């Protein structure tokens, strides 16, 4: 069994065992067991949906902290372009980048520069007729994982390039080596991240290549401090390497394809909608579309679970910044993408659906599951700790739950037992049965049977007394 690293975790003390998270999880990775949420590691794609919807803030993303950068003598911050959406218009990108320097980083490298490189690579790739259509963006790690676990047949459709942040990290490392000639282990490369999936992708890369990033620091964690230093030292603005609007645009849904200039595009965001669209791609329905831009968070990265600002406000700010950028530079010159810079490792499928390694056993289990499902009420209430009746049926055939976990089935059973007890209580041994007319008991019994038959279709009139 492969070990999985996940950045989405549970703070057990805060969890009340409510069903909000199990209902939202797109891969049905969560169950409530023992009054607490349990995440099935192999199914979790770190999309952060459960973080967003937990009313008790019991779900969290484990990220690195600013203190971690002390482990390296030289540190570079890689801010996600979505970071700019957290600040009002008067706070310039330069001010934000320099603010990061004040937090202790030695250098700042705009991740949007990596996005520019991927943009040109995608533009190139789409020139080739033989590329599978639709091509699916691989920029969002939660989407890539969704494809690995739920749509493994679509892996070939994924853009074969690394995500912008990984490319930015490679560029940083190459530059550092060229400039200083110092060993790479002295260099800390830190992604300032809007989401947990990105951290997971660093610790446990999507493909088979190791990541070039040292760690990820949550935007929510550093926002307060960053804001403070920016407002304190507005004058201390130096020149940092920054990208054009094309790279910055990747922060919002639709920005990636707009930058690449791809026209025949389908833009889909929010993980459940993505699942639906991928379903259609898998059915061969969307062959006439060139490119699918898919971002797990509603609105794109600006809607990430580790963001501070409301996503609509963030989108408004981002679009304004982009509009200004476009006015100054309608057609930015984008850096070319050398082959080896953008290549990512091979992606392996991680199917989660199969019920058993042995196909005959799996077939048997599917049948059992169908039968169990027919007996369940179909309300999908979640009280049993599984997200739907179907999921409960699956848990039952897998030996991880019992039919009595369903409160309706339990009540039914209690009702049957009570009936049985009544039947037994009415029975008297002949020695105590002093009444001459035994019909009285029979009458009583037949009444009871009549009473049940109306509700249960009269199928079990002998069962009550047995």
């Amino acid at each position, binding site marked *: 069994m492969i070990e999985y690293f996940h950045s989405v975790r549970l703070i057990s003390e805060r969890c009340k065992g409510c069903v909000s998270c199990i209902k939202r999880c797109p891969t049905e990775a969560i169950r409530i067991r023992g009054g607490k949420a349990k995440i099935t590691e192999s199914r979790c794609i770190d999309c952060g949906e459960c973080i967003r919807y937990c009313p008790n803030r019991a779900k969290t993303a484990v990220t690195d902290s600013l203190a971690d950068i002390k482990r390296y003598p030289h540190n570079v911050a890689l801010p996600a372009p979505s970071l700019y959406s957290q600040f009002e218009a008067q706070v310039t990108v330069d001010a934000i980048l320099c603010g990061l320097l004040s937090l202790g980083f030695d250098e700042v490298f705009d991740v949007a520069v990596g996005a520019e490189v991927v943009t040109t690579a995608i533009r190139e790739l789409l020139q080739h007729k033989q590329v599978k259509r639709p091509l699916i963006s691989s920029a969002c790690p939660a989407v890539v994982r969704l494809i690995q676990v739920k749509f493994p*047949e679509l892996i070939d459709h994924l853009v074969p390039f690394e995500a912008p942040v990984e490319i930015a990290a490679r560029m940083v490392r190459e530059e550092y080596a060229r400039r200083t000639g110092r060993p790479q282990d002295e260099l800390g490369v830190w992604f300032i991240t809007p989401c947990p999936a990105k951290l997971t992708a660093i610790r446990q890369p999507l493909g088979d290549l190791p990541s070039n990033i040292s760690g990820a620091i949550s935007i929510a964690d550093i926002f307060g401090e960053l804001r403070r230093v920016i407002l304190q030292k507005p004058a201390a603005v130096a020149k940092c390497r920054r990208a054009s609007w094309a790279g910055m645009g990747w922060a919002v849904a639709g920005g990636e394809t707009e930058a690449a200039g791809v026209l025949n595009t389908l833009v889909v965001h929010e993980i459940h909608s993505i699942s639906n669209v991928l379903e259609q791609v898998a059915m061969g329905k969307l062959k006439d579309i060139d490119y699918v831009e898919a971002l797990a968070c509603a609105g794109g990265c600006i809607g990430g679970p580790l963001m501070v600002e409301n996503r609509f406000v963030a989108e408004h700010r981002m679009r304004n910044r982009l509009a200004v950028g476009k006015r100054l530079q309608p057609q930015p010159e984008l850096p070319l993408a050398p082959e080896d810079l953008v290549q990512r490792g091979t992606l392996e*499928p991680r199917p989660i*659906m*199969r*019920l058993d390694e042995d196909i005959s056993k*799996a*077939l048997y289990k*599917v049948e059992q*599951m169908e039968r169990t499902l027919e007996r369940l009420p179909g309300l999908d209430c979640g009280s049993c700790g599984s997200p739907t009746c179907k999921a409960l049926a699956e848990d039952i055939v897998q030996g991880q739950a019992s039919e009595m976990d369903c409160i309706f089935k339990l009540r039914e059973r209690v009702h049957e037992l009570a009936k049985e007890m009544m039947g037994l209580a009415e029975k008297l041994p002949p020695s105590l049965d002093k009444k001459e007319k035994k019909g009285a008991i029979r009458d009583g019994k037949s009444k009871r049977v009549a009473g049940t038959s109306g509700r249960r279709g009269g199928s079990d009139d002998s069962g009550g007394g047995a």
Partner: protein
Amino acid sequence: MEQPALAMEFHLTAGDFNGAGDASGKIKRTLQQVGVKAEVIRRIAISAYEAEMNVIIHSLGGDIRAKVYPDRTEIEVKDSGPGIADVDQAMQEGYSTAPDHIREMGFGAGMGLPNMSRCADRFSIESKVGEGTTLRIIINH
């Protein structure tokens, strides 16, 4: 005769675009649970979907049945009319009786039957004008 390990049956209503894809979607999910290889599932799902769409677009309604054996999946699609006059012609790529506006919607491109036969390991089609069409698709796992 060998009993299938698993059988599914769905009714298809003519013109019911709302329910289009439901049957093939369910067949697909079940096969994923069985653990059939992703590429094989894809072929089965695509042929089942094409067949489903054909019934919904062209026929007066019908049924789709999927029988899953450990080594193969068999799909049978039966509809009640109007039937195909020239099966050989219908099997040609790009041949379609669908009008242009349907084609522009992405349907009726005349690729349905050829697509199915390309995905299938065994494919047969029987049709009688005025009675209906029966498709049989077998895909080995």
